[in-house]
């Protein structure tokens, strides 16, 4: 009906429905992994990147800190996870150049009592923790810098991390610049277990993304998130409102770094083999690209951006790379390398025409979709970029912090609590 009013619980049920459908789809995909390998791989990557993008957005979009250290923190997470999870039996093969440091072997032997899933969780957490400690300590001097100076300093930090990891001095820990391989992947790899082969290869990254992103969203919607936004808007005024700049910037920086590092660990598991070179500035730029394409200051934008960019770059545009002959006619331009040309052009088009990103700074909401559809049906012209961007009407009372659970009194009624 045209006149239906959107109710909060509709959103809840719809979200639940979508979640269930998504879970089902993911499960189906991973069981049929052999037929949909590309889809699985691209979804895995998108999930991991969406986590990094959201945590980068926390800094760049919500706190207004232009930070370009993501690759460095991902490297910390990736290497920690990799070093701790490479199966003991494979270690010597991995460190074939210089051998593995005895203490590290000792640590790994001790840890090998843990079953693999636990070991992985443990490794991810340790990676996050190390990154958090780093973030905390470099934050003290570096976060005082302003805008682009901060950007270049964090970028510098990330490059230093990379250099240290690949330095010959650390050969016996990080395998220097040769990288690490035989990192366990997400899913069950060996047949013979209780679960089918491939099980978990999507659901694990999915739950990881879900929890970390949910956490960031909760932080953003809390009073601390508002303080971050205040800092983004005007540091002087924020400070005058009693917000401790350094403390809050550091908080955002540490949260973002910990989660970025954990995502780095996930990336290591996705890649199965990593090298320091992969964690260069280019990786950070790629993430930045996702964040801005999605919309600075929009969590759903970052997630959308991660999927759109990864799908386009790694999958949809692939056919541009192979020569195509239709009826004896060689389609011009199509050959190796053309995909990236097309990708760059598409990128430019998106930036030029959606200058505030796909989502602007607004978030996805069922209500927005609903209104948009209704508008379309009524033939009201919508303008570009305005699709989901509807301000709420002034409420009769302050909007509640947490959306009401289904069954709670509906909005409109003034209830004093």
């Amino acid at each position, binding site marked *: 009906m045209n006149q239906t009013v959107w109710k909060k619980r509709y959103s809840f049920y719809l979200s639940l429905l979508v979640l269930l459908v998504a879970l089902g789809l993911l499960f189906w995909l991973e069981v049929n992994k052999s037929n949909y390998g590309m889809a699985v791989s691209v979804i895995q990557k998108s999930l991991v990147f969406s986590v990094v993008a959201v945590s980068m957005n926390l800094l760049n979009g919500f706190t207004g800190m232009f930070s370009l250290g993501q690759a460095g923190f991902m490297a910390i997470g990736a290497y920690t996870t990799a070093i701790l999870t490479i199966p003991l039996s494979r270690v010597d093969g991995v460190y074939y150049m210089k051998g593995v440091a005895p203490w590290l072997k000792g640590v790994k032997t001790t840890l090998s009592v843990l079953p693999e899933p636990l070991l992985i969780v443990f490794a991810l957490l340790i990676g996050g923790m190390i990154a958090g400690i780093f973030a905390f300590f470099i934050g003290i001097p570096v976060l005082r810098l302003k805008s682009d100076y901060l950007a270049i300093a964090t970028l510098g930090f990330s490059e230093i991390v990379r250099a240290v990891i690949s330095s010959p001095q650390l050969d016996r820990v990080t395998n220097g610049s040769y990288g690490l391989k035989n990192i366990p992947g997400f899913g069950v790899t060996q047949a013979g277990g209780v679960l089918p082969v491939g099980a978990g290869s999507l659901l694990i990254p999915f739950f990881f993304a879900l929890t970390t992103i949910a956490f960031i969203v909760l932080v953003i919607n809390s009073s601390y998130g508002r303080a971050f*936004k*205040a800092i983004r808007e005007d540091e002087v005024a924020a400070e*005058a409102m*009693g917000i401790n700049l350094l403390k809050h910037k550091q908080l955002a920086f540490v949260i973002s770094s910990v989660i970025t590092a954990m995502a780095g660990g996930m990336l290591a598991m996705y890649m199965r083999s990593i090298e320091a070179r992969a964690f260069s500035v280019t990786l950070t730029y790629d993430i930045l690209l996702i964040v801005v394409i999605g919309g600075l200051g929009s969590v759903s934008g970052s997630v959308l951006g991660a999927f759109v960019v990864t799908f386009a770059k790694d999958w949809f545009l692939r056919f541009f790379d192979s020569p195509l002959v239709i009826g004896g006619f060689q389609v011009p331009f199509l050959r190796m390398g053309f995909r990236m040309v097309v990708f760059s052009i598409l990128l430019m088009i998106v930036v030029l025409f959606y200058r505030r990103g796909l989502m602007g700074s607004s978030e996805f909401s069922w209500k927005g979709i609903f209104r948009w559809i209704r508008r379309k049906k009524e033939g009201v012209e919508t303008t570009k970029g305005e699709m989901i961007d509807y301000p709420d009407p002034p409420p009769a009372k*302050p*909007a509640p912090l*947490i959306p009401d659970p289904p069954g709670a009194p509906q909005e409109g009624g003034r209830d004093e609590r």
Partner: protein
Amino acid sequence: MKDKPVLSTQDLTMQFGGVVALNNLTMRIDPGEIVALIGPNGAGKTTAFNAITGVYPPTNGFVELEGKIIQQGFPKGKMKRLYAGENAGKYTKSLSLTPDRITKKGVARTFQNIRLFKNLTVFENVLIAHHTNMKAGVFQAAFGMNRKEEEDMRKRSWELLEMVDLSDVGLEKADNLPYGKQRHLEIARALATKPRLLLLDEPAAGMNPQETQEMGDFIRDIRERFSLTILIIEHHMNLVMDISDRIYVLDFGRQIAEGTPAEIQKNPEVIAAYLGVEQ
């Protein structure tokens, strides 16, 4: 009723390069007073605010809030050589709380060039100012374990907006408000930090005489309602003379007069430097 002053400054001096923007300001403000700080352009009024609220560490002298020193400085480094103010050598300690610490201690301010959080809503602007008094840590806040506190903050924010007549535009972007409303919002935001001392920098700038009068009433009103002490900078003499209990006059960074509005209006030095011959 003259107990401890809310705010006092002693020999407060602020020098930028060779420019002594504020020279040896010594003043006191008692609880519940409305005190005005006036003077020609560039006399150092805003600088005084900045030195009090910790935006700049003072070059010399100190600031006390309710008997406790919050800012103190003496010329060091290159400034030692350059120093052109008075009382060099009198102070040897330095202490400078950051603006947020000072706000936490109960001093709030508005800015001469309005500094709202432009892209946030009017409501959020006020809500954010409550953050400083929040107890919950980041995890508690994130997981909604401080629901009570959060709801309280929201309720009080709407109340404040109601008071400045902005509740109907509460969900507008702050930047879209007309100038005069933005000034009101800045005051509401400052009040949300629960100050005991409020510093207002030209709250009536850009207002017509009618609006200026209303601003005067408003300031008096909030003083009563929140039992505030107020220090105000203004160039609208009608307003200043109307609401202040006492006035300090600055010229070229120096205090040239202090007194009640009646005294100041008659002071020849003030007339020469600031008010002009006929009023």
